[in-house]
């Protein structure tokens, strides 16, 4: 069967090789589009995965960015989120791509990341993986939870113990508003004592959402909460 790039519709041309003869990762994007996905490489913030290569010196504190430093000196938030890891830069290409995926609802676009997420998770050490939930209203509106879909396409079965109350869209809030917001998450059952939890979300922007979720999990007994996001905004 002919395949087309999920993003630009161009036909995918398979290059013959001996390796490909035995095993081939399924391809979803054409080379042109893959090229525009920028993996975060080089030196990155130990806290939030932000690339430190292009960051001005005054925004760097040791091996962390200033934002993470600010979180860690705050006694309320210190150590709540052990570490965040992000896979890609949130560049214009990924911004458009994720907008089409989340807001237009083109579910199938999740497939393009399945291999990368799968290989990261194979090496990661965790007991439970929890995608950041949407409120029921938002999930109905979108038709699916973008983070759950990314995990499911990567053949991971996510935990559903975290739920969310309805609130305004994150993307329409400023950093200040986000920091001030109250707990929007709830836990349903499950014993978290001494468990290591990996949170999963599509984008890390200020890290507030992830930290609110992490706080709740820590209070419920989780030993360590880290996070993985597709993009670092």
């Amino acid at each position, binding site marked *: 069967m002919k395949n087309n790039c999920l993003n630009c519709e161009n036909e995918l041309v398979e290059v013959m090789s001996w390796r490909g003869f035995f095993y081939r990762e399924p391809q979803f994007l054409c080379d042109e589009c893959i090229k525009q996905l920028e993996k975060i490489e080089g030196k990155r913030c130990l806290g939030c995965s932000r690339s430190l290569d292009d960051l001005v010196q005054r925004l760097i504190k040791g091996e962390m960015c200033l934002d993470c430093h600010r979180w860690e000196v705050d006694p309320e938030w210190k150590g709540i989120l052990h570490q965040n890891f992000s896979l890609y830069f949130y560049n214009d290409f990924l911004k458009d791509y994720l907008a089409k995926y989340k807001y237009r609802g083109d579910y199938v676009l999740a497939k393009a990341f399945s291999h990368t997420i799968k290989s990261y998770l194979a090496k990661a050490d965790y007991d439970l993986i929890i995608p950041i939930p949407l409120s029921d209203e938002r*999930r109905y*509106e979108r038709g699916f939870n973008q983070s759950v879909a990314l995990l499911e396409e990567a053949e991971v079965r996510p935990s559903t113990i975290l739920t969310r109350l309805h609130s305004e869209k994150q993307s329409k809030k400023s950093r200040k508003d986000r920091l001030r917001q109250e707990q929007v998450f709830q836990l349903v059952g499950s014993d978290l004592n001494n468990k290591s939890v990996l949170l999963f979300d599509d984008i890390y922007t200020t890290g507030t959402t992830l930290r609110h979720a992490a706080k709740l999990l820590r209070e419920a007994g989780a030993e360590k909460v880290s996070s993985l996001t597709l993009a670092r905004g």
Partner: protein
Amino acid sequence: MRFAFADDELIPEPLIEQGTAVLQRISDFPFLPPQPLNPSFHFSPELQSFLSGRSLLLDEIPFSIDTLQEHYVNGYVSYQKGMEKSCCHRCGNNRPHLFASYSCSRCHTPCTYCRNCIMMGRVSECTPLITWKGPAPTSETTPTFKWSGTLSEAQKTASEQMVLAVKERKDLLVWAVCGAGKTEVLFEGIHEALRENKRVCIAAPRTDVILELSPRIKKVFPDTGVTTLYGGSDERNTYGQLVLSTTHQLYRFQDAFDVMIIDEVDAFPYSYDSSLQWAVEKARRPQSSMIYLTATPDKKTQKQCAKGNRNFIQIPARFHRHPIPLPKFVWCGLWKKSLKKNRIPHPLKKWTLSKLHQSKQALIFFPTVELMEKALPLFQEMNPLIESVHAEDPDRKEKVVKMRNKETPILLTTTILERGVTFPNIDVAVLGAEEKIFTESALVQIAGRVGRSADYPKGDIIYFHYGRTGEMIKALLHIDQMNEEARKRGLIDEK
């Protein structure tokens, strides 16, 4: 959204008490019974003018589900299947690779959706499309017609034909050369339609064309509700007796128009995308007239015209009564190799230098962006003000304006400037006219850039090539035949 079914009526999920009924997706019902119209029902005139002639997602409608259901029960609104048996009912897509499925939190089942029109909101198996079934809004006022220009003889004949087509609800192809003044030909016909309280749509494939047309039309019909629709337009929610729309936006209409005017039928992407043609068919009423405007009908259409199987009218001459300049063919050897060696092919270089010398503005068409970018620095060695433009160019608009202001002596371009753009006094060259992208229609359109204004009716049009192709010859014959036809009909003044 899912529906329950009781007493021959659909009931939307939000209006049912939980757990009391069997819920199904709209596509799972074998038959959707039409509701009889209740003539004594007081329908909402706001909903009428919003929804009339349209086919929309629930998310696109700013009325409550209660209001919609009330109108449905009384036969004024219908719920239709968004997609069925791998065909999208909004855009007509039926290509398997443009569908995908997901586990849907609206219907809690694996749900297939259409990827072709996803940018307009998702249509899936559980998505109803909502249409108006009641009477269309009527306007009491007679339309004002404010236009004082005069039509050329050929324009007048075409205009009369169009009025006739509107009256008799027939189709008509207006085959008018570049620069014939097509828009003015439409005015009388549109006026006639409005007088009969008909709804009219002018659709064009590209936003630029719609934006240019809109103020002109509004000026001619100042009292008529004119809606201008394109991606991101803010006039989406108003009813227009006269709608100007990109062909994409027609996806949101159904059985709406009595007169459907399609500008530049042959232009990309309309001619390539069968789903856009499907949208046009969906948007017009069953008994309606379709007016096609083009300078370069495709082969099939030309044949139909020649055989007399198609109602068409030609405007073979420009309004200024001068013939269209004929293209000249100039062989320029292995021009790709020259470019690779950082040389402009000699004949083109000579031509360019002479234009710079005469300070006459010129357009040079290239087959691809890559070749054009490669050539740009070579041209800039001759004159640093020479620029290039292509479809994805972020400064596209500014560059065209600079050309119009005569700040740019020569503009290199891809085929994006082949139509719609008018510079009054320019010469034009095509490099690599034998390339596949330069079809007969593209070459005729490009030649049509020359000699547009009455003050400068002449100009150079050169096809630089490495071996003449059938398309080049057809383009030359096409222009020659149009001039010949115009002479026969006495539409050209020759000194």
